[in-house]
């Protein structure tokens, strides 16, 4: 266990450093993206551009620029190029919306996926199973921004059942917060519910044909007890692994489309705006933050998996 933690921590640091370098290079490679020219504004003289280039360090070699940016990231002083505000403050502002979205949707898709998967497996081959399969397929095939936009159009604009996007902090008004989050949660979880119910259904069906299920039947247990006590416990393990990775991906910027459609002003939407403005520092920080979540939660997932299933060894 201790060895596992040390190894994973080292590899996390290495991956983060590599990711920050790659992200930096992607934006450095943009030909007409001279940040000094954009900082100076449209009506600037070459002299001001040169002065800005010097004060911000754009005239230094690229590795110096990189080291300077990273130093600022860790001392909390990263300033964005376009709006010239502190990036970490902006991210802190967006974080509650992103976490509300990710946690709520994560819970919904986990439980709805398990529920629908179990129902489909219990009724395998029947009408319910086919209907659920069809619904899951449609969920998997619909882009989240299309689903979100249609929800907004029909449920918020036409029927006025829900508000037209936006985010209300949980601390200021819990009721409004819930009211504003329901549609984004549903839109984001639709895809995952489709995937999870399909995966769980096939896992349950696979487990059903194992020897210990036959033993349980021979002992005279009811089908319901076999399904919940014996089969489900085994089938849920891969779902837990999937959930850890998907949840990390959603927190780390995967909800970018959902946030943009519902105008939640989360971290993802901030990333999208910054990328559009070719603003390197926010993108760099958000990508690092997202990757950190992915790497961290994949390590946590491995530990939880080993806990749930003693046959899995931690390396």
């Amino acid at each position: 266990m201790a060895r596992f933690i040390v190894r994973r921590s080292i590899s996390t640091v290495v991956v983060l450093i590599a990711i920050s370098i790659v992200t930096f290079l992607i934006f450095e490679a943009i030909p007409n993206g001279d940040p000094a020219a954009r900082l100076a504004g449209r009506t600037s003289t070459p002299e001001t551009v040169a002065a800005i280039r010097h004060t911000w360090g754009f005239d230094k070699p690229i590795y110096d620029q990189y080291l300077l940016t990273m130093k600022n990231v860790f001392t909390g002083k990263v300033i964005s190029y376009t709006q010239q505000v502190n990036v970490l403050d902006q991210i802190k502002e967006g974080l509650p919306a992103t976490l509300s979205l990710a946690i709520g949707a994560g819970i919904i898709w986990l439980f709805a996926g398990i529920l629908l998967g179990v129902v489909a497996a219990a009724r395998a081959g029947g009408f319910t199973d086919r209907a659920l399969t069809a619904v899951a397929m449609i969920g998997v095939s619909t882009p989240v921004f299309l689903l979100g936009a249609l929800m907004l159009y029909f449920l918020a604009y036409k029927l006025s059942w829900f508000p037209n996007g936006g985010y209300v902090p949980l601390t200021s008004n819990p009721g409004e917060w819930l009211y504003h989050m329901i549609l984004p949660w549903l839109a984001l979880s639709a895809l995952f519910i489709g995937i999870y119910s399909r995966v769980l259904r096939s896992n349950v069906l696979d487990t059903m044909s194992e020897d210990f299920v036959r033993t349980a039947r021979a002992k005279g247990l009811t089908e319901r007890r076999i399904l919940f006590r014996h089969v489900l416990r085994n089938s849920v393990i891969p779902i837990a692994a999937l959930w850890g990775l998907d949840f990390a991906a959603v927190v780390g910027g995967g909800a970018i489309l959902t946030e943009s459609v519902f105008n939640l002003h989360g971290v993802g939407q901030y990333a999208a705006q910054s990328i559009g403005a070719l603003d390197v520092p926010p993108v760099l920080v958000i990508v690092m933050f997202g990757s950190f979540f992915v790497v961290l939660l994949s390590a946590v997932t491995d530990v939880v998996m080993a806990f749930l299933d003693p046959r899995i060894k931690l390396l």
Partner: protein
Amino acid sequence: MRLLYGGRNSLEIGFVATAITMILATLTGGVAGYFRGPVDSVLARVLDLIWAFPVVLLGIALGTSLALGGINLGLFTLSGNSLLVPAVIIGFVYIPYVAKPVRGQVLALREREFVDAARLQGLGTVRILWSEVLPNLASTLIVFVPLMIANAILLEAGLSYLGAGVQPPNPSWGTMIADGIALLPSAIHLTLVPGAMLVLAVLGINVFGDGVRDALDPHSPIRLGH
């Protein structure tokens, strides 16, 4: 009419991106699995690196920077508004999803007797990989193809919605939906029609892929991307 051309672009990107993913993933996965040791360590780290990037973020970052500058790799040059730019990006970001399972399978395959036999016959490495290992990977690869096409079309739509995919004036279902959403309260059909086309196309490919999977390997639950 625009709908048809948009569909052609969406599907073209889906297929080209999938071809790129499959070829590069088979190459890296196969080489990493077959040679093991330092080669494997390096390739596995690179794959982990791409894997750790949030897919949509990496796609947008590459999309925006390449849409402005185009790709210039010496051998071939693509201008920023070329359709192939999103295809290359999408193909690239999905490589680890295929390369990892391929690598795992090659690791197991290289220990099998028929590979030893081929090696003892004095066959070269390339020959062994091509005619002994690759045919055994075929069913895995075939199962991934429809899945990847469906995911690639969805990712293209997502990137286009954020302005990092297909660049105007070229249409694609993604950009058309994005344009429709911008006009939403007044003209719902501009969203609904390309949206329905996209969903139906992806749905068709997914159902087809499900059938292929059941036909080839009833026991493998495969992870879908985002």
